[in-house]
């Protein structure tokens, strides 16, 4: 177990370094630099040049890269010219919003996936299964952004059950009970929309996995020994099919990141995804690179976590 973990972490280190290099190159390719946002265009070129020198922008690329990494590790990601404040502060605010939204999405995803998957797999080819299969069939082909728009249209506007934008009702006291309830209400529709689509893969996986295991010899043996049907399911089938799912949530992070860009955009939810799109539209590149770095590392950590959990759950992986 520890051997696999150590090896897996060794694989991760070059990934993080490569990611940072790529982001650095992207940042260098972007028009303008850290100064374009800071300085009044009326200041004379000599002063700008002096400033550039002072900020190290004339240094060779590897020195600049090293400075950037050093600062990033210490939490200094530079200045946003749009907000006129440190990027780390802006990201900090937005990150909490995105984090809670992602968490709620994950919870709803599993809350839907597990009962539907089990029902569908255990009672396959019944009407219930057909209904669930129909849902996953449509959900598999449905792009997230269209589904989210339809949800917003129906539940946000037509029925007015949920607020149609923002993360909290303005004017509430942070920390108060109403504040938390309002936050939750704002998150619910976006999270539900994302989860209803994200859950499809897990339901399909669970269904085929259960149907597959049902016919395996060791299940027949358990039945032949006289184990009750519920015991067969709880002790043998679910144990084998649910554990991998528990590990998948790390991989889901990549999907959640992509999803958050659409979801936050459509529901005007002030998270990282929305910050990213907004910043790229007004070319606030320090913010953009920080967002990519953050989400990139989140995805790497997610897959690390999933791989490790999987290796605990499934001993075959460890041997490799």
């Amino acid at each position, binding site marked *: 177990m520890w051997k696999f973990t150590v090896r897996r972490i060794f694989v991760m280190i070059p990934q993080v370094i*490569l990611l940072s290099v790529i982001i650095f190159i*992207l940042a260098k390719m972007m028009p303008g630099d850290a100064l374009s946002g800071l300085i009044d265009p009326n200041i004379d070129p000599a002063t700008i040049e002096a400033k550039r020198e002072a900020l190290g922008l004339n240094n060779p690329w590897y020195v600049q890269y090293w400075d950037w990494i050093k600062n990033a590790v210490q939490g200094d990601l530079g200045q946003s010219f749009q907000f006129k404040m440190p990027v780390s502060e802006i990201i900090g605010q937005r990150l909490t919003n995105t984090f809670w939204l992602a968490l709620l999405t994950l919870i709803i995803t599993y809350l839907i996936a597990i009962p539907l998957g089990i029902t569908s797999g255990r009672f396959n080819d019944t009407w219930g299964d057909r209904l669930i299969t129909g849902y996953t069939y449509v959900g598999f*082909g449905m792009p997230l952004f*269209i589904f989210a728009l339809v949800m917003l249209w129906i539940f946000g506007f037509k029925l007015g059950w949920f607020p149609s934008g923002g993360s909290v009702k303005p004017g509430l006291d942070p920390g108060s009970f109403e504040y938390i309830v309002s936050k939750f209400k704002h998150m619910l529709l976006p999270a539900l929309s994302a989860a209803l689509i994200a859950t499809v893969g897990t339901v399909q996986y669970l269904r085929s996995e259960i149907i597959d295991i049902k016919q395996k010899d060791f299940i027949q043996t358990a039945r032949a020994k006289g184990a009750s049907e519920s015991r067969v399911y709880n002790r043998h089938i679910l144990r084998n099919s649910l554990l991998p799912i528990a590990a998948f949530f790390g991989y889901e992070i990549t999907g959640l990141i*992509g999803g958050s860009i659409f979801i936050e955009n*459509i529901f005007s939810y002030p998270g990282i995804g929305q910050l990213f799109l907004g910043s790229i539209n007004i070319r606030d590149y320090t913010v953009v690179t920080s967002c990519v770095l953050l989400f990139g590392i989140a995805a790497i950590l997610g897959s690390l976590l999933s791989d490790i959990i999987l290796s605990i759950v499934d001993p075959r992986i460890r041997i490799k």
Partner: protein
Amino acid sequence: MEIETSKNPLLLSKVEEPAKTPSGWRIIWRELVRDKVALLSLIFLVLITAFVYGISLFLDQEEIVTVDLFAIHQPPSADFWLGTDYGGRDIFGQLIIGTRNSLSIGILVTVMTGLIGIIFGMVSGYFGGAVDNIMMRIVDFFMILPFLMIVIVFVAIVPKYSILSFSLIMTAFLWMGKARLIRSKTLQERELDYVQASKTLGSSNFRILFTQVLPNLSSIIIVAMTLNLAANIGLESGLSFLGFGFPESTPSLGTLVSYARNPQTLQDRWWIWVPASLLILVLMLSINNVGQALKRATDARQRRG
């Protein structure tokens, strides 16, 4: 390739009877015919492709994307079958051209990622060892990148942005899945005796890969590419929806849906975004139907017939 076995009796030794199994294309065709939904989907796809490519020959893209301030936000009428958008542009025309553009880029990206994935995966899986190790680490790394964000950044900073550069950017970050799939299949194939036999018969590695192994991968490649086509159309329209897909002057299905980000359009002007949304959904479902039928045809355990 169909062979008439009945007309051409084989000279058999007395004890042995040949085992007849139908050839690949016939299995695929039989599976499609048996699966009515997939067959209908295929017919629908062929018709809609012929329709949008045919009609768009007679449509003037310039004229359709030209702003007409006297016809802003008109509901469907005899002049504008599906009304007009905020620039007074005909939705129906944009729908046709958008479908064509979305299909074209979907196919282009699918083919390009397919080619890269096939070559990368086959080389990695066939040679194995250190080559495989390095190539798979590259794949792992690309896999872990936050796809949507990286693509959006590239789209934003690439100078002289065009449809070609858009499809190249998408391709650059979408080939890895296929490379992995093809690699694992090649790993299995190279252990089979026909590959070993080819080696003893003096065929070069290159020749073995492309004339012996590749034909055996064809069915999974077709299935994977079909399912990918649907995904790529979804991705393209998603990116266009966010404003990082096709350039403004080139309508796509996603561009039409993106008008719904305006709450007023979302609530009151369904004709702008609902047809495009439905079309995306139906296209993706149909392509998936065909893909699933193909998948069943290539997997003997799942075959219906």
